[in-house]
């Protein structure tokens, strides 16, 4: 191992090697932080909504006949949809997980407006809600048909029972087991009591970027108005077939209305996470291009470095060094430079990450990212230097004695 001579040779002619080391360092810093962000976003996007995303679609029906009786119309629509072949179930709802728009309320444990309230998403639905969304009831019971009422805009009262997600139950009653949360009362709109009769495993709110996205409540209330949103769960495999059929059926049902914004849950998810998925793509691209540039830079500088030392190589060969020894020399030299580079890179990477955690609220780097990046850059460096190093072995020993 010729580390001594390699190091001393490097020290005598530092500049280009310092440059390579710096390049490797900055590349590593970018790589580590970019991969960190990619991981964070991918984790966000992988979260399940809790509903049957593969089979659900929803649409808006806007009635513009001013004399229409919305309640009658909606009831007739739901009946027609539920009986349509290929439909599993359907409901009227104000929103859908990851839709981007919806309703939220603040809930308290006491009817005291001075206390802090916990925010939860609100979904207005009837007793078919659980089956239509495809969520799992893990405690308590569903709404009875008699408990579902049409909302009276003028009276403005609020139902007294609700089904909540496990996350909401844990947030409001952190010290109780789930079964003990059943029957407990929370307070909505300052003083209105609302009792928990059921708990579901999971149902996300409409806003994917919200810290409380796992907190949702089902409210047994039908909100009849000119704009109605129908959420429809198809039987497996039927969704794409029946979507245009349902649209056609509703549009030609004789009522003055427009059907619009028909969308599948999968599209809703894609729209909701569009920024995150694009960021992942951009960052992946940046990491790949960056590695390529650094690799090519090393190739360039290594070629040059070899070309400058043909006389030295020739001399060594004339003195008896074998071809593999020359190869080993250059590979090792590059390894030393890369080591300096990745060590510096690790420090810069951690420094940048700490700043980003502070400035942007990013997550901290997972411990294995630094060693993984080090190994990657070592490999890239070795690969890059291999070509020029092989050319170095081809230098003829006769060059030692030539003066040009």
């Amino acid at each position, binding site marked *: 191992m010729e580390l001594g001579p390699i190091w001393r040779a490097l020290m005598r002619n530092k500049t280009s090697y310092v440059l390579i080391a710096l390049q490797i360092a900055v590349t590593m810093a970018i790589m580590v932080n970019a991969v960190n962000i990619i991981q964070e976003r991918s984790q966000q996007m992988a979260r399940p909504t809790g509903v049957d995303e593969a089979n659900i679609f929803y649409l808006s029906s806007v009635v513009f006949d001013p004399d229409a009786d919305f309640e009658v119309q909606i009831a007739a629509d739901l009946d027609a949809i539920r009986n349509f072949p290929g439909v599993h179930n359907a409901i009227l709802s104000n929103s859908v997980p990851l839709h981007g728009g919806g309703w939220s309320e603040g809930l308290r444990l006491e009817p005291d407006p001075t206390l802090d309230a916990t925010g939860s998403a609100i979904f207005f639905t009837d007793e078919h809600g659980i089956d239509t969304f495809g969520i799992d009831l893990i405690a308590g019971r569903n709404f009875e048909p008699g408990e579902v009422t049409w909302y009276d805009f003028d009276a403005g009262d609020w139902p007294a029972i609700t089904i909540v997600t496990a996350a909401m139950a844990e947030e409001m009653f952190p010290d109780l087991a789930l079964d003990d949360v059943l029957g407990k009362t929370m307070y909505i709109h300052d003083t209105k009591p609302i009792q928990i009769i059921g708990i579901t495993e999971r149902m996300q709110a409409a806003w994917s970027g919200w810290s409380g996205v796992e907190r949702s409540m089902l409210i047994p209330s039908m909100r009849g108005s000119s704009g109605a949103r129908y959420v429809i769960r198809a039987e497996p495999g039927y969704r794409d077939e029946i979507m245009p059929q349902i649209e056609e059926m509703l549009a030609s049902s004789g009522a003055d209305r427009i059907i619009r914004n028909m969308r599948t849950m999968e599209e809703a998810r894609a729209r909701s996470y569009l920024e995150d998925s694009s960021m992942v793509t951009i960052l992946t691209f940046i990491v790949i291009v*960056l590695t390529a540039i650094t690799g090519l830079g090393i190739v*360039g500088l290594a070629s040059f470095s070899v070309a400058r030392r043909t006389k030295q190589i020739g001399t060594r060969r004339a003195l008896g060094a074998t071809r593999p020894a020359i190869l080993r020399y250059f590979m090792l030299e590059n390894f030393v430079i890369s080591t300096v580079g990745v060590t510096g890179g690790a420090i810069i990477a951690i420094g940048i990450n700490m700043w980003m955690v502070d400035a*942007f609220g990013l997550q901290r780097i997972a411990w294995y990212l630094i060693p993984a990046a080090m190994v990657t850059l070592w490999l890239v460096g070795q690969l890059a230097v291999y070509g020029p190093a092989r050319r170095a072995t081809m230098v003829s020993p006769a060059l030692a004695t030539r003066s040009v």
Partner: protein
Amino acid sequence: MFRYYVKLGLFSIRKNPILSALMVAAIAVGIGACMTIINVDYVMSGNPIPHKSDVLYHVQLDSWDPNDAYQDPDLPPEQVTYLDGTALLEAGQARRQVLSFKSSRIVEPQGEDERPFQVISRSTSADFFPMFDTPFVYGGGWDKSADDNEENVVVINREINERLFGGENSVGRTLVMNDMPYRVSGVMDIWEPLPKFYDVNNGPFEDVEEVFLPLSVSIAGEHGSSGNTSCWNAREGGREAFLNSECIWLQFWVELHGASERQEYMSFLSAYVETQKELGRFPRPMNNRLNNVMEWMEYEEVVAEDVNVLLGLAYMFLIVCLLNTIGLLLAKVARRTGDISLRRALGASRQAIFSQYIIEAGVIGAAGGLLGVGTTWLGLQGIKALYGEFEFIARLVAMDWVVILAAIGLAILSALAAALYPTWRACSVHPASQLKAL
């Protein structure tokens, strides 16, 4: 000598094609990455109404919950209540004022062939059009008397005008929306303020609304808001209770010219809030805000955080490309020591060598910059492809001359900066040192 050096520069590029290609490519890629993000940032943080952005002010009053600020640490609500909005509108204490909200209507074309369709509408008081200088193809907005008399007038955009009236001058003609006839008072020309500063509650880059109608008509007709509605205290049911509640759902802007008008208006706001406090409203401490357009855009954080993160990474990317360039330039100089020492022996000063190599670097930078315009364009197309869902992106990724010149400028500057050290090394070559071996 400048042209001679440029010639030498181009000649040297041809002599070392691979090395030069690597350098030019590295600069082009680095510039491309940087300028793509800078372009997006530049457009996102652009001024949507430069000739009026410092006389238009967004008004905030803190009518919120005594136990909980609207937004930490102690920020007032982003919209106003119906009570406050109409009171301020009536008071008319600013040069101009406008109260509005976003809604939707169903347009019912007369005639059997056309089906009804939904449009996004804005219900607004009359000053919207002169305040925001909206361009008109035909006609104009309405005046205060139309507001007061709840006249059914409407301003439509060009697309609707094309669709319903064949693009003709439709002023005075009738348009039916939700079974109500409206008289067209004007056709608005294409207007795409970036961001849509007057209402960013549902996102800063939405399209401008398609039709505009008087606020009073919408209130009387009980049109619902399509924007955000937030309420902090319990209230009774019914329309009356909602209008008199502390729910915020309207946007209020004023036009004030000069510091004294602004100060007078702030005093007026304080006095107004005092009278409301006496009536039992506004339990929180006085917290009125007047933000002009750019201040409001900053307050609302219109530039996405992702853009800032990418901007930081892009600058670091450029640094890597520059380090690359420095290394490759060093290699180039080292190869030409014979050349340099010959010139020095023939009498060239250090400065001459310096000029020669700096200009050569500048040539490489210019080449990289030109190529960089191409890579920037590619990068922006990539962004457009990724975000295709959102049509407004097409406007964010449009390159204008400022960006193109900036790309070339940045490339040349970076190449020159990268060349400083290698060129200094070139100047240090001793005239006699290399001549021995020749």
